[in-house]
C-alpha cells in the first residue's frame, strides 16, 4: 500500500489514466499532474515531472467523443394562471368602480386611483427588482416580511390621515394590488382574482364599500404572508437597493402616465376606463412573454461566435427578431382585442368605449415593454429618461389645454417613451456580445 514513483509508472499508463479521467488530452502539465496525483496516487514531484512529459506528447486539447449534452429549454410555468390573474384583476377593478363611485363619489374614487396606481406600480417594480423577479424571490422577500407588513400598515394609517376617505381607499387598493403580485408569484393568482370578483359582487349587492375593500386588503395581505416560505429556508439575500429604487421610480412614473391623462376619466366612467385597459394589458402580457425568449436567444446567438468577431455587429439577428416578434404581438393583440371590445361593449348595452383611449393604453403598453426591456438590459438611467420623456409628452398635451381626442396624452406619452427606449434597445441587441459583457454582466 505505498504510492508509486514516476519511474514505476510508464508514460503509456500515465497517458491512458489521464485520458480516461479527463476524456481528452490534458490542457497543460499541471492538469496532468493533478490527475496523476489524485487518481494515480503519485507524489507531487513525480506527478509534476510526468505531467510535463505528457503535455509534450499531446497534440492539442481536442475532446474525446462523449455523449452529447442535452440542451434543456426552461419551462414556462404558470403562464395561463398569470394571464388569468391579470384579466381577473382588471375586470374586478372595472366591476368595483361603479359601486365605489355610487358610495364614495366620483371625485374620491378618481383621486384615490390617482394615488393608488402610481404607488402600486412603484411598489410592484421595486419588489420585482429586489425580490420577486429573482430566483427564490419569495424566499428573499420572506426575510423582510415583518418590515413589509409594517410598511403596509403604515401606508394604511398615513394616507387616510392625510387624504381622508380617498386616502383610505387608495391605501387599501395599494395593499390589495401589491399583495396580489406576491400571490401571483406564488401561483395563487387565480384565487386572488376570484376574491376580487367576489368583492365586486358584494359591492353591487350594496354592502359598505370601504369595509369590503378593507376586507379584501386584509385577506390578500394575510394570504401573501402565508405565501411566503419560512424565513429560515431562504438562502439568498435580497437584490441591492439602488436598482430597486430606480425601478420603483420608473414604476411610479409609468403609473402617473396611466392616470395623468385627464381625458381618461377614472371617476364617473371608471368602469369603462378600466375595461379599456384589458386589451393592452393582455397584449402586453403576450408580448412580454415572447420577449422572455431573449434569455435563451442571446446566449445562443453568441455561442460558437468566435471571440475575434465579438465587437462586430451581429449578423445573426435572432435577438432582434424576438424583439420584433414581441412588438408585433403587442400591436396585433391590442388591435384585435380593442376591436372586439368596441364591438362587445355596445352590444352588451353599455356606453361606448373611446377608441382613442384604447390607442392610448396600447401606446403606454408599448412604452412599458420597451422601457422594462431597457432596464433589464442594464441601462437604468436611460430607462428612467424614457419614462421622463413619456411623462413630458403627456403633460405637454395636458398643458396645451385640450386633447385632440380622448387618450391623446396617453398616446403621445407612450409613443415618446417608446421612441426614446427603442433605438438604444435595438442598438444593444445588434451587438449582443458587447451588451452581455458590458451591460448585463457588469452590475
Amino acid at each position: 500500500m505505498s504510492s508509486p514513483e514516476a519511474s514505476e509508472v510508464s508514460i503509456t499508463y500515465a497517458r491512458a489514466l489521464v485520458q480516461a479521467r479527463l476524456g481528452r488530452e490534458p490542457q497543460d502539465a499541471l492538469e496532468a499532474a493533478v490527475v496523476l496525483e489524485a487518481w494515480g496516487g503519485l507524489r507531487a514531484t513525480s506527478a509534476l515531472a510526468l505531467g510535463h512529459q505528457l503535455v509534450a506528447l499531446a497534440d492539442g486539447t481536442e475532446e474525446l467523443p462523449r455523449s452529447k449534452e442535452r440542451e434543456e429549454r426552461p419551462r414556462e410555468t404558470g403562464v395561463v394562471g398569470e394571464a388569468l390573474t391579470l384579466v381577473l384583476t382588471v375586470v374586478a377593478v372595472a366591476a368595483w368602480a361603479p359601486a365605489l363611485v355610487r358610495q364614495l363619489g366620483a371625485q374620491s374614487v378618481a383621486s384615490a386611483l390617482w394615488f393608488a396606481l402610481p404607488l402600486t406600480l412603484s411598489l410592484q417594480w421595486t419588489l420585482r427588482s429586489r425580490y420577486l423577479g429573482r430566483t427564490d424571490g419569495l424566499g428573499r422577500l420572506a426575510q423582510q416580511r415583518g418590515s413589509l407588513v409594517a410598511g403596509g400598515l403604515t401606508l394604511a394609517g398615513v394616507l387616510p390621515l392625510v387624504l381622508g376617505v380617498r386616502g383610505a381607499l387608495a391605501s387599501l387598493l395599494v395593499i390589495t394590488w401589491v399583495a396580489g403580485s406576491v400571490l401571483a408569484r406564488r401561483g395563487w393568482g387565480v384565487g386572488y382574482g376570484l376574491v376580487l370578483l367576489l368583492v365586486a359582487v358584494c359591492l353591487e349587492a350594496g354592502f359598505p364599500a370601504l369595509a369590503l375593500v378593507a376586507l379584501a386588503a386584509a385577506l390578500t395581505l394575510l394570504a401573501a404572508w402565508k405565501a411566503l416560505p419560512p424565513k429560515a429556508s431562504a438562502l439568498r439575500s435580497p437584490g441591492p437597493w439602488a436598482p430597486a429604487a430606480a425601478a420603483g421610480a420608473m414604476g411610479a412614473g409609468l403609473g402617473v402616465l396611466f392616470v395623468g391623462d385627464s381625458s381618461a376619466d377614472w371617476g364617473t366612467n371608471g368602469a369603462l376606463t378600466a375595461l379599456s385597459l384589458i386589451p393592452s394589458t393582455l397584449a402586453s402580457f403576450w408580448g412580454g412573454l415572447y420577449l422572455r425568449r431573449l434569455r435563451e436567444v442571446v446566449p445562443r446567438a453568441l455561442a460558437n461566435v468566435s471571440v475575434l468577431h465579438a465587437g462586430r455587429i451581429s449578423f445573426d439577428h435572432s435577438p432582434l427578431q424576438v424583439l420584433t416578434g414581441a412588438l408585433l404581438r403587442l400591436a396585433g393583440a391590442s388591435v384585435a382585442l380593442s376591436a372586439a371590445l368596441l364591438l362587445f361593449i355596445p352590444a352588451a348595452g353599455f356606453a361606448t368605449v373611446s377608441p382613442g383611449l384604447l390607442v392610448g393604453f396600447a401606446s403606454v403598453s408599448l412604452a412599458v415593454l420597451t422601457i422594462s426591456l431597457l432596464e433589464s438590459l442594464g441601462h437604468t438611467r436611460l430607462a428612467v429618461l424614457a419614462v421622463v420623456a413619456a411623462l413630458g409628452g403627456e403633460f405637454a398635451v395636458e398643458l396645451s389645454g385640450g386633447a385632440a381626442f380622448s387618450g391623446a396624452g396617453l398616446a403621445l406619452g407612450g409613443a415618446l417613451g417608446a421612441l426614446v427606449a427603442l433605438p438604444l434597445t435595438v442598438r444593444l441587441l445588434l451587438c449582443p456580445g458587447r451588451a452581455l459583457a458590458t451591460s448585463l454582466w457588469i452590475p
Partner: protein
Amino acid sequence: MTGRLSVVRPREPRLHSRPQELRVLLTTEGTYPYAIGGVSSWCDMLVKCLTDVRWEVLPIVAGGQRRVARFDLPAHAVLAEPIELWSEQIPRSRVKRRAGGHAEVRTELPGVLVRELIGWNGRLDSLQEALVWCRLRPAAIRGVFRSRAGWEAFLRGLGEVLAERADGAAAPPDFDVREAARLYQVLYWVARTAAVPTPPVDVVHATAAGWAVLPALVDKVLRGTPLLLTEHGVYVREAYLASARAPQVSAPARFAATRLARGLARMAYEAADVISPVIDANARWEEGLGVDPAKIQVIYNGVEVRNPPTSPPRTKTIVSVGRIDPLKDVHTMMRVMVEVLRRVPDARFLHYGPVTEGQEIYGRAVLAHHQRLGLGDRFRFMGHTPDPNGAVQAADVVLMTSISEALPMSILEAMGQARPVVTTGVGGVRDVVRGCGFVARPGDVNELALGVTTLLRSPALAQTLGLRGYARLRSKFDQGACVHGYRDLLARLGSRRKAA
C-alpha cells in the same frame, strides 16, 4: 505611478490598537468565519490562541447569499465587511473628477488583467500596478468595464493570450463570445476585490493563494506590508482538480478557471514574503510550481490534546468525519463499506459531517447511491457534529477516502484519540499517517476495504497503530507548537515592517 500614489489615498477603515501590538489582516476565501471546515477551524484556533495579535478578518465570499457566522470572534479580533463577489452592489463612492471635468479612466485595465492573470507568463509588477490603480480609483472600475473601449481592450488582451504557445501547455481552446464575456465579468470582480480598502496593518496573512491574496498585492505596493501566505490545500491544484471533476464544463470555461487560479497563485507565490504550508506535501507542490524553497517554512497544523486517549469500543464501528463533498469521495467510502460488510457482516459505519454548501446535488447523489447499494442502517449519515473528538471516540477504525487533502483535521483527531486510520494517500496524508495506519491509492476500494477489515479483525494491531498515532501527534502535530510557530513568524514579519 509612484507620484500619483502619494497624492490620492483610499479611504482606510480604522483599526484601533495599542501602540506595540502586532496588527494582522487575515484574508479568507469562502471559509472563516462563515463556513465549517478545516481551514475555518485553523483560522479560529489561530485567532483565538494568538491573543497578543490585533486581528482584522477580511472574508471574501460569494455575494447574494445569506451569511451566518459559524464562529464567534474574540475581543481582540474585528470582522471587516466581507468582500462579496458576484454581488450586484454598485461601488458607493463617486468618480473623482479631474480639472478637465473627466474622470481619469484606464480603459486598458481589462486588457492588462487578462494578459497578466490568464496569460502563461504574467508579470507581477504589471498586475500590481493595475490593481493599485483599482484601489486608488474604485469608482472608475465600473465605468471602465462597462465601456466599449474596456471590452475591446479585453478582447485584444485575450487574443494575445489565445495566441500564446508555451512549453508545458497545449494550445488554448477557441473562445466564443459568451465565454469571453464570462471571463470579462470575472476580471471585473478581480478589480473590485483589489479596490476594497484595507486597514493599515503590520502583516497581511492570506489563507489561500487565490482571491484572498488580491488585497495583499495592493497593500504590498502601497504600504510595503509583508505578506504571509498559508496554504492548506494547494489552491491551484484544487482548482485543476475541480475542473477535472467537471467534464460537462466547456473547454474555454475550464481554461479560464484554471488559468485564473494559476495566475493568482503565481502572483501570490512571487509576492509572498513567507509561504507557510501546513504540511510538507504542499511544500513539494509549491516548489514544483517554482517557489524558492528558502521562502517556504512548513508549520504543521495541530490539535489540542487535553485528555489521555480512551480505549476503543470494540464494536466494529468505522467512523468518518468530513463534509459530504466530491473531494471526500463519499461514493468510494460507501463501496468500501459494502466490501467490508462482505467480510465482517456485523460492522457498522457512522459518517459525521454536513453537505458542503453548493454541493447539494452531490449530497442527493450520495443518498441515492446509499440506497442503490442497500447499505441501510449499517452505514448512517449522522450530520454535523460539534464534537468530532467525541465522534471519533466511538470508532474502532477511522476511514478517509478523500481525493484531495492537505493535513486533514479528522485524521489528527483520530490520532488524538489513539484510533488507527485507513486513508487514501493524498496531499500530506502520507506524511501524517506514517506507521499508524493503512494508506491506499485514491478510489482503490479493495485496498481500503482490506485495511479496514484487517484492523477490525485484529484489535491488537489496531490498538498498537492507534497508540503509535497518538505518540506521533503529541510529538509533531501539537497545537501549541503550531501557534508558537505562527507567533514567531508574524512577529518577525511585523518587526521587519516596523523597521522599514
